[in-house]
């Protein structure tokens, strides 16, 4: 919100042409043209009751609760304050007898058919209807008729239940679904007194954002399965935190009851998430409470099985492994991972690696971007709102960074900026894109170079600020190709700013803290290759699972089996940690304090809400203990010390000294000196016309451990399949739904064939990390592109 008061320190008073001044209950309030009365009144102490109004959605004037009096030329007029814009000199009264009577009347009408089953309602205790019935209601009802009856809660999606008796028809959920999420899967049906919110027949409310409707419901009509009957609001402890499911870094409130996480709620953070969360981030707290969590260190016994041990034995054994390895060479020790923890975790491990002389450490799992992208002129998430052009050189934001998708979608919807989609297939934003550059893998840079002769496109770029959202849109294409494509864009639009979207939660923080190869150290792919060649004596997996995350199954397998010793620090037994020699249980999200860095380099806090399960500890503490056991004092022994050491030790993190900001909207990391990218020669990689070029990307609900261990999310994923353009199906000769044999230079897998017009002809889209055949068997991280042969099974 723009501040309208002219500060004393500013000598020049800039008169805002949009500034107006209104009088609300005798108090002068500064407001802006176009703002609604209710928004202006929210900056005063006078609360106008409301149900349908939501500051992040268009007003609808449905509940009529926010009636106020505006003094006009013909005397006071009763208007709804959520739909009436402010005007200069306007006089508004929110508490006259007439207003009071109207507001009381409205509440009486809203409560007339409300079941008042507050004692068994999840919302009871935090319910706007309950609160405002107390503060603005008539106290008693004169409605003696029988109330409306409907079947008590019906499931409108896997996780959301609707109780139509409680619903007051405020249009918040339906508006959210249509306006914000773009999934208009719920709507009003029937009329008059029988109006109800409903899904379309046989079409559940399967939106990635359905949980938000539960949060914004002003009554208990919408409830979420993971929270139903888990706790009462007055038993809940709240801490404000940052979601670390993906790297958008949505601000959340983590709520726990009896030392168990029960719910996450979105916090309206202007620069980041505006209060929205995706369902994956909202409901994956279940995995923290999972019975499968590691509670005690494990060590491989004589028979080769992992069995429980004590921390002292585990740390001593781990220290011995590290020391032994260091005896041969510091290059024989490597660290993979660190992006799932906090900045402090990454910093402590980077410090340990420095102390041990380990240069081969990588927090990206061969599916990221070179850290140089952070040295380009950076954009923030909020820049999307003002950018004239938003170029998507990124994975499907809806699938990988859902809340960022909402922001870009809004920019296109509100026409504040134009979206250019550069992608090997149509993504969730294709329908909103001004220009779609769908190009098969290996030809992106060339296609962009060709665009420089497109007058409309170059004029659009020149019309104002440009934000380039850049990430790995295809895991079967090398990271260099993304960099080359980015170089082409920056060549055409030198004023563009870049928003690198690396999806793993704190990958930017981990890289900044030092968990990235240095002094010629190896990257993840190189580490695994070296391990396969028997050159890695001790491999540390810091919350990383190469066997399921590195997009090259063969390399990961050879690397993990070739490493002599493996120390895994993890919250669960994963494919990789099951093969480790020592497994150290790590404290998970909500169990530890710290800070995290999101895609735009925003540092904000993650808060501890519950005690770590079993004997698990934060990663940084494990680093300190391993340091002590290897005779290296890292110089810190408590969270506050490691946090302070990080701020003073890493120049980019210096701004995190502002604790208050870190605990609210966050602070942006300091940017290093900008670099420029060099363009490649622009040669595109041609494809044999009998082959299909692979496009590999992620879906929101995949086999990620946080999803797989959350019962409410685990069932939402789909099985893996190979998806081609409908026009290519006859060429393959197989029916849609039939299993086909897919062969790459690396291997062969069998999976069902599906068709979609979102996929370009001559390409095949293979969502990765789903149930069924493992797509990674086809991939090779050393190749620029992967071409596939698809054959009908004989």
């Amino acid at each position, binding site marked *: 919100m723009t501040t309208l008061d002219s500060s004393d320190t500013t000598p020049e008073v800039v008169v805002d042409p949009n500034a107006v001044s209104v009088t609300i209950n005798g108090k002068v309030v500064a407001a802006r043209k176009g703002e609604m009365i209710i928004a202006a009144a929210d900056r005063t102490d006078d609360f106008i009751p409301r149900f349908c109004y939501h500051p992040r959605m268009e007003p609808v004037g449905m509940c009529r609760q926010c009636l106020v009096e505006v003094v006009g030329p013909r005397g006071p007029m009763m208007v709804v304050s959520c739909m009436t814009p402010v005007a200069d000199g306007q006089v508004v009264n929110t508490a006259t007898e007439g207003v009071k009577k109207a507001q009381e*009347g409205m509440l009486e009408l809203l409560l007339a058919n409300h079941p008042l089953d507050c004692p068994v309602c999840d919302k009871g205790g935090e319910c706007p209807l309950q609160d405002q019935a107390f503060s603005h209601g008539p106290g008693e009802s*004169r409605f003696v*008729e029988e109330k409306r009856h409907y079947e008590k809660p019906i499931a409108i999606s896997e996780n959301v239940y609707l109780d139509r008796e409680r619903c007051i*028809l405020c249009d918040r959920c339906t508006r959210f679904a249509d306006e914000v999420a773009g999934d208009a899967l719920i709507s009003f049906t029937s009329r008059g007194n029988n109006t109800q919110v409903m899904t379309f027949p046989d079409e559940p409310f399967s939106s990635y954002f359905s949980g938000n409707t539960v949060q914004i419901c002003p009554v208990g009509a919408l409830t979420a399965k993971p929270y139903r009957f888990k706790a009462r609001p007055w038993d809940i402890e709240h801490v404000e935190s940052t979601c670390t499911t993906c790297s958008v870094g949505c601000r959340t409130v983590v709520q726990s009851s009896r030392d168990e996480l029960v719910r996450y709620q979105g916090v309206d953070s202007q620069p980041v998430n505006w209060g929205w969360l995706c369902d994956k981030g909202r409901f994956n707290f279940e995995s923290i409470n999972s019975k499968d969590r590691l509670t005690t260190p494990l060590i491989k016994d004589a028979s080769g099985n992992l069995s429980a041990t004590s921390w002292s034995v585990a740390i001593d054994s781990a220290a011995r492994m590290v020391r032994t390895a260091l005896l041969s060479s510091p290059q024989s020790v490597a660290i993979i991972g660190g992006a799932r923890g906090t900045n402090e975790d990454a910093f402590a491990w980077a410090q340990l690696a420095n102390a041990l002389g380990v240069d081969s450490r990588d927090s990206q799992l061969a599916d990221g971007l070179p850290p140089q992208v952070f040295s380009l002129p950076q954009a923030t998430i909020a820049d999307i709102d003002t950018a004239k052009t938003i170029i998507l050189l990124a994975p499907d934001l809806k699938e990988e960074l859902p809340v960022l998708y909402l922001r870009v979608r809004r920019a296109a919807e509100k026409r504040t900026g134009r979206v250019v989609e550069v992608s090997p297939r149509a993504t969730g934003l294709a329908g909103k894109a001004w220009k779609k550059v769908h190009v098969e893998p290996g030809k992106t840079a060339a296609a962009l170079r060709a665009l420089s002769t497109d007058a409309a496109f170059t004029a659009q770029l020149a019309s104002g600020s440009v934000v380039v959202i850049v990430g790995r849109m295809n895991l079967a294409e090398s990271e260099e190709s993304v960099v080359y494509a980015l170089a082409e864009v920056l060549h055409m639009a030198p004023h563009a700013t870049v928003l690198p979207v690396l999806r793993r939660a704190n990958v930017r923080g981990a890289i900044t803290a030092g968990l990235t190869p240095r002094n010629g150290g190896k990257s993840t792919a190189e580490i695994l290759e070296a391990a396969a060649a028997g050159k890695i004596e001790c491999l540390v997996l810091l919350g990383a699972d190469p066997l399921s995350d590195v997009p090259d199954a063969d390399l990961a397998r050879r690397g993990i089996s070739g490493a002599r010793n493996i120390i895994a620090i993890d919250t669960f037994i994963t494919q990789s940690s099951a093969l480790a020699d020592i497994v150290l249980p790590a404290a998970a999200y909500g169990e530890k304090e710290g800070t995290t860095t999101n895609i735009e380099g925003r540092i904000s806090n993650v808060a501890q809400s519950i005690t770590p399960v079993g004997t698990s500890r934060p990663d940084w503490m494990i680093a300190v203990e391993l340091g002590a056991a290897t005779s290296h004092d890292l110089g810190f022994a408590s969270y506050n010390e490691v946090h302070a050491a990080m701020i003073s030790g890493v120049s980019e993190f210096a701004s995190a000294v502002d604790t208050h900001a870190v605990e609210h909207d966050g602070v942006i990391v300091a940017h290093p000196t900008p670099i420029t990218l060099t363009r490649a020669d622009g040669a595109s990689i041609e494809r044999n016309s009998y082959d299909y070029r692979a496009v590999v990307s992620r879906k929101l609900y995949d086999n990620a451990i946080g999803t797989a261990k959350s019962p409410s999310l685990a069932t939402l994923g789909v099985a893996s399949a190979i998806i081609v353009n409908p026009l290519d199906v006859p060429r393959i000769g197989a029916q849609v739904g039939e299993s086909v044999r897919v062969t790459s230079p690396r291997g062969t897998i069998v999976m069902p064939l599906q068709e979609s017009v979102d996929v370009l002809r001559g390409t095949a889209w293979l969502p990765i990390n789903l149930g069924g055949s493992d797509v990674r068997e086809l991939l090779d991280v050393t190749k620029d592109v992967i071409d596939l042969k698809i054959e009908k099974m004989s």
Partner: protein
Amino acid sequence: MDEWKGSVMTAAIRYPHATGFVAGDRPKIVTSRFEHADSFTLERFLATGGYAGLRKALERAATDVHEEVKSATVLGRGGAGFPAGTKWGLTPQQVFPKYLVVNGDESEPGTYKDRLLMECDPHQLIEGCLIACYAAGLSQCFLYIRGEMALAQERVAVALNEAYAAGYVGKNILGSKFSVDIVLHWGAGAYVVGEETALIESLEGNRGMPRLKPPFFPAANGLYGQPTIVNNVETLANLPWLMVNGSEAYTAIGTKTSPGTRMVAVSGHVKNPGVFEIINGTTTFRDLIYGAEFCGGILNDNELKAFVPGGGSAPWFTADQLDLPFEASQVGPAGSMLGSGAIMVMDSTTDIPAAALTLTHFYAHESCGKCTPCREGGTWLERILTRIVNGTGTEADLQQIFEVGAMICPGDFPNASNEKLGLAAVPFPYKMTTICFVGPSAFAPLHSAITLFRSEFEARLVKRISIPVTAVSTPSAVLA
């Protein structure tokens, strides 16, 4: 444009030639062809001067035609009575495209004049649409016909196909540079879609619910976000005659503020109910109900008890207001409205509470469900009134009706004066807490019914048996 493929004649077989129109020895502006059994055909239309108004209009500059309509003061016939020429001038200049939406969703209780206009003379409506589009610079016309009017839908569809084939609609109309397309859209049967912004929502394929105001007028921001003129069927049907005869001839009929004629549908306890084209502004309710050329008096020569002057939403009048003319500036201050031109007459045998319940039920049923007061309050009113009509209501219930009504319409409620009851007229319109007029409409007839005929409601209430309570004197010893 594709040929309309519906079954053309089925509805016509189901409904014989529309009855209900009563001709008379009066000027006819919109009903001149109604006397012919084949009035809806293109042959009859052309034989009786059809499309002459369009030819005349196309010969003149568009601004000229607009001026002509303006100076004729053609009042909107949908209910609000806003002059059409002025309305056309409200659209912003230099915006393209602008649309004409024809509100043929006539669903006000008691009203059936537009239906006859569409059934009996569809070409006249089409001609009116074309003239309006030409004069106001509108590039496309959307004709929205109420879902239940099967015959009107068929007749207009057939007429439109004929007009397209004959070159009256489409590209380069009558060889001129003027092109316009007319799109037919059939409603799905919702009363609220008669409200212009709800109609636009419905046209766009959304749920028929009134839009937010501001913007107050679709003229600025209407269909698909473009400037849109919404006109009633009868309003547009006036234009061909106006073009042929000129605004002077038009204003010569009726009064200065209410020129021309208007269609009035009378129903209820009269000898000769039907639709009449009457002279605007001068004809009184007494003429209409008792006049030999109109309804010819009350059925069985009973006494008049009350009548609805302007559609189901209007507060009721009694014999006291019979001498008011059809003139908005006089009916409004008397406590009601002319509305959609529907008059429902109730004689002395009428069960007033039951009649009020019929209307209240309609409005409770037809609430779109958007605004809380209308959605919840309408049904609440209906339930209380049902109790009273069934003889189980109490005095408190009667009072509660006013309390619930005040939540929908705070402030003084319009009602007609009645010297016998000592009532002073409270002028129309009312204050309201809802977006559109459907909410107050649920209360308007009920309020006037109770105000004017309270004794009839009280007679239905549960009689309370009062048990006399004798005060027992307290012994003085206790007090001491």
